């Protein structure tokens, strides 16, 4: 019971979607204690589009996001990002190989991830947080990385907070630094895992504003959130997950204003 997305309104130069998820299952644990979190998910995310994933807690939305970034190993199925199979390689004889951690790290470096709890490096200033990956992973010169980091921190409105430690920043500021940190690697795809759920209500707006700005710049984004307003306004495509499968998907207008799927209707009645 899964739906495949038809890429919304053209604009993509390639027919290959940015993200292609096919028949993905994820099982945590073994034997009797095993939990089947993803039960066959198919999803396409077109280049330059914003996909918002909705669903009740425990429906598998965050797990799906983490699987795309290989923070979780999938149990079955396959995930392609930018046309590249994530985490595995088929050889000429049709045998599947696990990729070396070095290659997996390179694959991850093209995907930005923003976490619910920010996870800024607590012992580094905002500037050092943003410079870290370009210098350590890309081998960028410090001066160059610094200039770029300052530019990115300016873009998320934190030019005057570059020397602050995460503990000296508000939740909204920390999340904006986290977005700048992910952008510093020039990702082709940004994943947002409930980026505003840990924030006080009055701080949500500043983070959503940065994300809106990013979307209008043409960044491909997959956003797990409960912000229906954001979904309605920014998303090209909305996906509703329940119990490990995608039960409804479509354009935000159709899906959110006139939900036909009873579980989605039930969910929206609780969230709105």
């Amino acid at each position, binding site marked *: 019971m899964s739906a495949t997305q038809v890429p919304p309104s053209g604009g993509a130069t390639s027919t290959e979607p940015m993200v292609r998820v096919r028949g993905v299952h994820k099982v945590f644990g073994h034997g009797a204690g095993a939990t089947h979190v993803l039960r066959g998910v198919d999803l396409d995310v077109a280049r330059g589009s914003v996909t918002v994933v909705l669903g009740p807690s425990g429906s598998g939305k965050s797990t799906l996001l983490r699987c795309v*970034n290989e*923070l979780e190993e999938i149990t079955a199925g396959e995930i392609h990002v930018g046309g590249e199979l994530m985490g595995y390689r088929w050889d000429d004889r049709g045998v599947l190989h696990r990729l070396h*951690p*070095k290659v997996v*790290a*390179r*694959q*991850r*470096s*093209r*995907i*930005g*991830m923003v*976490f619910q*709890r920010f*996870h*800024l*490096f*607590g*012992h*580094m*200033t905002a500037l050092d947080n943003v410079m*870290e*990956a370009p210098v*350590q*992973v890309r081998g960028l010169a410090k001066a160059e990385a610094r200039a770029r980091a300052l530019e990115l921190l300016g873009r998320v409105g934190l030019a005057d*907070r570059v*020397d*602050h*430690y*995460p*503990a*000296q*920043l*508000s939740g*909204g*500021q920390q999340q904006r630094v*986290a977005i700048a*940190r*992910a952008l510093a*690697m020039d990702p082709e795809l940004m994943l947002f895992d409930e980026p505003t759920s840990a924030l*006080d*209500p*009055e*701080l*949500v*707006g*500043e983070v*959503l*504003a940065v994300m809106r700005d990013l979307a209008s710049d043409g960044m491909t984004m997959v956003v797990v959130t*409960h*912000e*229906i*307003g*954001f979904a309605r306004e920014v998303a090209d495509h909305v996906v509703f997950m329940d119990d490990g499968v995608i039960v409804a998907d479509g354009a935000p207008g159709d899906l959110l204003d006139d939900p036909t799927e009873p579980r989605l209707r039930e969910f929206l009645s609780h*969230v709105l």
Partner: protein
Amino acid sequence: MSTTSSTPAPGRAADPQALPEPLRARPVPRPGRWVSAALVLVLAAMAVNALVTNPAFRWDTVWLYLRDVVVVRGVGWTLVLTFGSMALAIVLAVALAIMRRSDNPVMRGVAWAYIWFFRGTPIYTQLVFWGLISVLYPRLSLGVPFGPEFFVFSTRDLITAFWAALLGLALNEAAYLAEIVRAGLASVDPGQAEAAKALGMKDGKIMRRVVLPQAMRVIVPPTGNETISMLKTTSLVVAVPFTLDLMYATSAVGNRTFQPIPLLVVAALWYLLITSVLMVGQHHLERYYGRGFDGGAPAGRSGRGPFGSRGTRARRPRKQDFVRAAGTTKDDPFLEVTP
């Protein structure tokens, strides 16, 4: 309603911007403090009296040998043993702690067995063993087991009493420190490593750049404690036997001059002095590795290095001050509240 104070009632300042006059109230009487202070004073006087008036302590002899060249050289050797063995132990301990977290079961097993053995046998026994190694294995060779040998060393030349003592102390200490480092690594939020992973950092870099520096906050205080403990454990190197350290030097002088008590006091005073200095160092290290946490050092990139910023004793800014100063918590044009 009358007030005994002559100041105006608080919170009635005419200018609402002005800071209010702080409340002036008599403190709660604390007679317990005075009683305990008097009691402690009496006990302290008794202790000083007991030390000073007892002729057995021979304070003149203590003062004489406190600066004796043999004793001061003993202090030097004790310091070399303490810091040398701690440095070696820290390197080993970090390796062991990382091995214990490895997904390689061989690595995990080796680290577990090492800690099991070196923590499970007395340090004294281990030191005796290291002293006897040149008897047990007169020659060490590098080569294929049961096969040809490439290099051969005489153990007596390679492992002198000093190296036997240093190795013995370090290998034992590493087992304890490994557990401290492991606790430190476990104290870092797994989200930190995950975020680094998501940025494409490899495991080695994640450990070195992200996890270990934050684990230091937890590792440093008990390691300082271990260093202080090691300072005194060096007195056991007589088991090797290594005979130049502070404890052996002072007791040798004591035996030779038939004045063991004053020389024990000399040793105790030196250990106490070094411990005091170590405590100051530990305090600075703790402050350095605590930066970015619980208020931490003020923003700015100046005071780098563990002993860097000194004299910045003014009220440290708290997190809430920065949050308020940020001014992003209100008047937001994008404010959008979804329940």
